């Protein structure tokens, strides 16, 4: 089945009729391959560009995010240091009172609180522990009797603590019963011996509360962590993590050694992959950390990525659609071309047949005419008998008329089928005109016509034209002028050279029967005659003017006429000159 539908293409390839979209294409594999190759290159370039842009964008977004984290860490650090410093001021005041024997009354301390001398926004409680660890003084009205000698700060301050202020792990206060971070300082006696500890406790939330308003995403982390890995305050998202368990966080070793930096980890809190920025708190074994989930950090670049890849995908779709339609279009074109080639071959073949037929007809008509004309003329010329001479002359003239008809018919057919080509040659124009006129003299004389030739002195002597065609045109027009002239009429032939358009202008004027105006539009039509076929008196084929017009057009000129019934006709035409030799 398919075999029957296969069409052999002019390029030798095969295709299947009716399936022009298939890549077993009509266009030729190489063209389609080239198209696909170019398209692939284009798509690769587009995707490559999209990939590199997305990558660069990711890097940029990440870099910006990290910078943001670093800045947040710096302000978190400053906030923390400020908090410690504020608390330390309270510690120092109490320490000063105690060490210099100034009796610190509960009333005075509560007044400090009440009047805002001591910043109470975050401080839960202020107190003093004596050398035995007993809680001996507080801002509270009736502080409970508790012993705090087991507290880490008490143990630390008993020795000399190098950082001055000790920031404790979050613990539940035995007095306040609240989760607090306790800031402590050692109190010395006059001789520099251990004389107790002064304590300020505050809510660890205070440190991280500040950051609730900053959007780090649901998994953002703000934390204050000791170098020992024990957290002081942690906030993940908007949630404060109360970690009073002494769980030790896995801080990367480089974080302990450096004052600031960044690192990535999924080990630190909850297994979430984050990028962290950290800064050491001045004069404290503490690190401030701000972390953000990697996915969060690059979330901006994610929708950038979606847009870039979306656009690339769209371009890809359009390009592929374009490619397919192009291949289809090329295939259709190839099919059309194929049809065109076929019909062209058929036309060429038909034309060849027509040419052969025409020349064969011409040959076959001329061969017997040669006998008729030749022998009639011979008899007419040699016979002394008028009764033989006269019929021979009739045969001669009739057969010449027939020959003319055959010639006109063949010429017209040739011109109409575009098979007549110009044979331009240089010849003497004057001589040809004289020649043409001479052949018509006997007929003008017979009809007693005045035949005048007006010649323009500017006419070039030598012209390069198709001489035979020019003769045909002039003969036709003169034939008609003579035929339609009344006895004793006048025929004027004028020749002018129109130098501005480098053309020769001919006009042939008669004062004969003329053509009625209603017939003017039909004059150059084939088989037209200014006579009804029944009342025809002038004879002729009705093809002369049609052929004349076509020959003038073939030579690049134009023919027109003026005519009126019973006044006469003037036919005039121009012939552009090809090569012109000046006189």
């Amino acid at each position, binding site marked *: 089945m398919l075999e029957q539908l296969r069409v052999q293409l002019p390029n030798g390839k095969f295709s299947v009729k009716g399936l022009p979209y298939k890549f077993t294409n009509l266009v030729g594999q190489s063209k389609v391959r080239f198209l696909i190759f170019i398209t692939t290159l284009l798509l690769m370039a587009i995707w490559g560009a999209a990939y590199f842009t997305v990558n660069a964008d990711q890097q940029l977004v990440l870099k910006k995010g990290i910078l943001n984290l670093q800045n947040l860490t710096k302000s978190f650090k400053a906030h923390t240091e400020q908090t410690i410093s504020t608390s330390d001021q309270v510690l120092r005041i109490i320490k000063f009172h105690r060490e210099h024997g100034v009796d610190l009354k509960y009333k005075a301390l509560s007044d400090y609180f009440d009047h805002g001398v001591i910043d109470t926004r975050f401080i839960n409680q202020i107190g003093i522990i004596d050398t035995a660890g007993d809680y001996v003084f507080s801002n509270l009205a009736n502080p409970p009797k508790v012993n705090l000698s087991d507290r880490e700060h008490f143990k630390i301050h008993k020795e000399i603590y190098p950082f001055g202020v000790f920031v404790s792990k979050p613990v539940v206060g035995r007095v306040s019963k609240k989760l607090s971070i306790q800031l402590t300082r050692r109190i010395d006696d006059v001789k520099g011996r251990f004389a107790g500890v002064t304590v300020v406790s505050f809510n660890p939330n205070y440190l991280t509360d500040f950051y609730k308003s900053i959007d780090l995403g649901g998994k953002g982390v703000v934390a204050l962590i000791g170098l020992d890995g024990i957290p002081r305050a942690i906030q993940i998202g908007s949630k404060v993590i109360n970690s009073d368990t002494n769980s030790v966080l896995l801080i990367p070793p480089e974080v302990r050694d450096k004052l600031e930096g960044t690192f990535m980890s999924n080990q630190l809190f909850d297994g979430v992959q984050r990028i962290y920025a950290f800064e050491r708190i001045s004069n404290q074994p503490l690190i401030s950390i701000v972390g953000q989930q990697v996915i969060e950090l690059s979330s901006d670049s994610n929708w950038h990525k979606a847009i870039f890849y979306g656009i690339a995908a769209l371009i890809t779709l359009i390009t592929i659609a374009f490619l397919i339609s192009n291949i289809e279009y090329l295939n259709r074109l190839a099919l059309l071309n194929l049809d065109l080639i076929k019909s062209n071959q058929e036309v060429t073949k038909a034309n060849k047949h027509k040419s052969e037929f025409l020349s064969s007809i011409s*040959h076959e008509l001329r*061969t017997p005419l040669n006998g008729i*004309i030749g022998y009639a*003329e011979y008899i007419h010329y*040699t016979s002394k008998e008028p009764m033989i001479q006269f019929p021979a002359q009739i045969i001669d003239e009739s057969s010449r008329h027939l020959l003319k008809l055959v010639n006109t018919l063949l010429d017209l057919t040739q011109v109409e089928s575009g098979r007549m080509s110009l044979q331009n040659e240089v010849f003497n124009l004057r001589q040809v005109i004289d020649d043409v006129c001479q052949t018509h003299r006997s007929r003008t004389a017979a009809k007693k016509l005045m035949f005048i030739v007006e010649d323009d002195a500017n006419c070039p002597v030598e012209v390069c034209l198709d001489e035979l065609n020019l003769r045909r045109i002039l003969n036709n027009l003169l034939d008609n002028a003579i035929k339609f002239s009344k006895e004793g009429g006048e025929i004027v032939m004028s020749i002018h050279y129109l130098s501005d358009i480098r053309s020769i202008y001919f006009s042939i004027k008669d004062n004969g029967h003329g053509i009625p105006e209603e017939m003017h539009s039909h004059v150059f039509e084939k088989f037209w005659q200014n006579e009804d076929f029944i009342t025809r008196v002038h004879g002729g084929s009705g093809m002369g003017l049609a052929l004349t017009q076509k020959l003038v057009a073939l030579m690049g000129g134009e023919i027109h006429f003026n005519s009126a019934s019973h006044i006469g006709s003037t036919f005039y035409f121009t012939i552009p000159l090809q090569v012109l030799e000046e006189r």
Partner: protein
Amino acid sequence: MMKTVLVVDDDLANRMLPGLILGREKYQVSECADGAQALQLLSSKTYDYILLDISLPKISGIDICRSIRRNEHLRDIKIFAYTAHAMKAQTKEILSSGFDDILIKPINRQDLLSLFQY
């Protein structure tokens, strides 16, 4: 001395016509019907002019003309095509194959005689 003419044409009427016209004008005219006869005549006798039809049986006028042109002894003969092939392309081809001129059928006395003027 009378000029000699050989007319080659397979059609009797067309073959005799030039002889009738030229015979009255002091030309000695011989006739034959095809190329083989023409070449045979030419091997024994020389002519001043040949009127050669183109569409001939077996050997075409063009081929006859070419073979005459190849023969050095026959170099001076004037060969005229005597043919009803009147289409431009055909006359062009004929003139390019060695003919001196072309006489297109139907002929008239005037044309025939003027051809023999040179």
